[in-house]
């Protein structure tokens, strides 16, 4: 029987034994194509008959508005920002992710704690501290890391409307103009994600390949994982997949 664990600290008041779904994380920096691949994967899995839900950063009921307000004014200190993101994550974990897993859904997550840890470290947070903060998070079934180098992001960013203040790390002393700061900031974020990829054993996909190639590979790996673990769930003789046939 599969079982969810956290990265250390227990989640107050949650029984992890009852969670039967799958938690699949898509990680990658800004502009790596996460949204595209999450959307494709969602419809492919739905087509196979799985119940699929999704969530992503700053989509909580509790904190999304507050974070947006704080970003507009650039008015929060960096520890406070890190903890505000952690609040948003915790709210989504408890009120979106855990209930979906309890109901047996495949929960696709457009970025997880790792991006938040990377952005915090780049902004000067102590790596041990920020990992400790997120130690209540669930270990996902798999993390797919859409990997790209900072210079390869540039055409994508230009095509989607230009450089964003935060995605260019303009709150940091990273360079005098948006382009220079963007390259420096994104390179640092990618460096941190690479290091987290080693530490937490992400499955890395090179997203400079054609989008269909990446999405076929992603689908192949996710569906394999779901099938393998569905077979292991002897308490559920009729997997969602077959109900659909």
């Amino acid at each position, binding site marked *: 029987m599969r079982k969810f664990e956290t990265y250390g600290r227990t989640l107050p008041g949650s029984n992890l034994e009852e969670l039967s779904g799958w938690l699949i994380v898509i990680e990658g920096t800004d502009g790596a194509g996460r949204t595209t691949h999450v959307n494709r994967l969602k419809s492919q899995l739905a087509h196979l008959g799985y119940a699929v839900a999704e969530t992503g950063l700053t989509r909580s009921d509790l904190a999304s508005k507050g974070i947006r307000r704080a970003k507009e004014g650039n008015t929060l200190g960096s520890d406070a920002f890190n903890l*505000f993101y952690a609040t948003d994550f915790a709210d989504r974990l408890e009120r979106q992710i855990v209930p979906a897993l309890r109901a047996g859904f495949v929960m696709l997550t457009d970025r997880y704690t790792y991006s938040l840890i990377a952005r915090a470290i780049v902004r000067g947070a102590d790596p041990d501290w920020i990992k400790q903060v997120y130690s209540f998070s669930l270990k996902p079934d798999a993390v797919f890391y859409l990997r790209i180098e900072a210079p390869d992001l540039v055409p994508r960013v230009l095509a989607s409307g230009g450089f964003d203040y935060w995605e260019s790390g303009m709150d940091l002393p990273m360079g005098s103009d948006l382009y220079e700061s963007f390259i420096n900031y994104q390179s640092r974020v990618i460096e941190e994600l690479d290091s987290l990829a080693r530490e937490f054993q992400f499955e890395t996909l090179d997203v400079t390949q054609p989008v269909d190639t990446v999405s076929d590979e992603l689908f192949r790996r996710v569906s394999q994982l779901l099938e393998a673990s569905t077979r292991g769930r002897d308490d559920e003789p009729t997997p969602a997949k077959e109900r659909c046939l």
Partner: protein
Amino acid sequence: MIESYTNGDGDGLVRADPASYGSHPNHYPGRLFIVEGIDGSGKSTQLSLLADWLRSEGYPVLFSEWNSSPIVKQTTSRGKKKMLLSPLTFSLIHATDFADRMEREVLPALKAGACVLADRYVYTAFARDVTRGVDPAWVRSLYRFAVTPTQTFYFRVPLEVALRRILAGRPRLKYYEAGMDMGLAADIQQSYRQFQSRILDEYENLVREFGLGVMDATKPVETQQRILRRAIEPHLVGLRRDRGLYEEV
């Protein structure tokens, strides 16, 4: 049931951990004084009397109040009003507020050599969050960035005395304040009593763990104030002051 602290060592004690609260000593010229205690312990009254006295002596004073960051508190009150907060998010949103005040109020004032007075500090979070079931070691590491105070005064008061002070005014108790989220009792006053009683127990653990100074909060107001001033006086030596500052007041 509240579990006692363990850090995996089995002796019931949390060790001073470099990755935990207590690893950011006050290296700054200013001083940081804290009052802690349950509602109705009289700590806020004492702190405001202390502030008046310090000002009259010419010391620059900065007040930092729990849950008062202008950006974060909107989210906190939204979460409370709509009952969105779990023990975990309750803990995190208060830590967010605290971090913002630490970076934008407390640290600059300490660097400037002020007397910073805080009504509630990390110990409030430790007491409340652990009472709500949050892991004690985790919440201590969450507040690692907090500066260790020059001195903390825990206002110890018997539960019935504090309850009488609070409940005598027939207050409209709020949901989280009364610990209604814990499902201790259906009646809000009953829940408030039980919740405060558990927090009181938790504070006693903190007094031992962090060696907090204890104030007998059943003593007359002026006696407490005298004790408080006498206790902080030695820490004021060498602080910048300006006797001309407040003469008009």
